[in-house]
């Protein structure tokens, strides 16, 4: 026995089920155990709230290492020649932009839609 829907109804149903499942997990696992066990052994200590690396607290600007820069660095090293070519020919740092990656996805979608007809 299977239930067939139209795709729009199914989106709503599955999204609702995802939220319901998440709700049950959040309250049934996390909050229940936190209230029943975790809060009884909680004690306040300012040191506990610090971010400590190798026994020392890092400067606050290091807390937020720019994630985009790490991402771009990985991609640049992976495609060294392609990035170099684009930088030299385009003369810009457009490759360091999410817009560029989304543009690639859009081009791929257009090619696929042309192939499918």
């Amino acid at each position, binding site marked *: 026995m299977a239930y067939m829907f139209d795709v729009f109804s199914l989106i709503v149903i599955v999204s609702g089920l*995802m939220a319901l499942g998440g709700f049950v*997990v959040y309250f049934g696992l996390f909050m229940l155990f936190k209230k029943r066990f975790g809060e009884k052994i909680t004690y306040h200590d300012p040191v506990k709230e610090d971010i400590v690396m190798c026994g020392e607290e890092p400067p606050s600007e290091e807390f937020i290492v720019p994630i985009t820069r790490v991402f771009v660095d*990985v*991609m640049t090293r992976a495609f060294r020649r392609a990035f170099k070519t684009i930088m030299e020919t385009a003369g810009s740092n457009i490759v360091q932009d999410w817009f560029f990656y989304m543009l690639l996805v859009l081009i791929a979608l257009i090619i696929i839609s042309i192939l499918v007809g």
Partner: protein
Amino acid sequence: MIVVDILLQLLVFPGLLFMIAMVIFTQWYWRKASARMAFRRGPTRTGPVGLLQPLADFFKLLMKEDATTRIASKYIPVIAASLGVGSLIAVLLLTPLSYAPLYAPYDSIILFYFLVWTSLSIALAALGTPNPYTNIGIGRYLALLVSAEPVLIASFLVPIIVASKAFGAQYSFYLTSLVSINLWTVNPAATIAMILAFIAGFIGLMGVLMIKPFDFPEAETEIYWGIFTEYGGPRLAMLFFVHFMEKIVFPILFVLLFLGGAAPVSIVENYWLGIIVVLVKYFIVFTVLCLIDTMMPRYRPDQGVKFLWKYGLTLAVLALIAVILS
């Protein structure tokens, strides 16, 4: 009746309770198998042959104090992880593992969306706890996802397109998985496409699940578990829950699309025997993933990303072109 069916499936089988049991068993199995390969014994003390050790670890983490740093978000990480679990159990309702599955024409798009969301929920949860190592881990994880998800989804699309063209599956995941055993022999072009997609899909699977050599976002000896660095106690339990559930749901989807699902049994006519066949095939894939993870060294992030684009995506795109032109 439909509401009862859906709720039972969501919360009991193949939903939450079944997933908790599977996470415990697969983790025990993973630890035992990898230990045997390294001439160790693995878990032995809790329960028969250490079977209950992952359950004990899970409850130990859940019962600990919920400690966070002063600049960490208190709610976003846990809500993101909970929704990640929710989306994975909702996805299972679109598969033949459910006794009353839900489906629609083009429902594979919904399935892919929720699969991507689970991976993003881990990234979002990690973003809530700033730490230099965590942020390096997230940057690496996003680079991995941008490279591995297109490979996985493009290769998963191949059997769905073949089934829709040859058997009228209407781009539905459920209808595709019912005929997946026949997809390899539709015509020569489809066979070639399925072989290419199978290889690409397995590579994408390894990437998304962070199986070695693609585990550079957590790289415990280098960036101290990266995306999980700042986590402990119940928050770590929630994140592990999502991550371990991914290791169950994604390979099951791979089995349903590429390894014939419940074949030679018809899961519609003999539901429980079909479930057993799917689980046996799943454990074969899971064992292969475990062996690879235990044996392989780790790629540098740029090496891993390059491998996924150069080999994984190329194979997946070639498979897509072959199946579209067939």
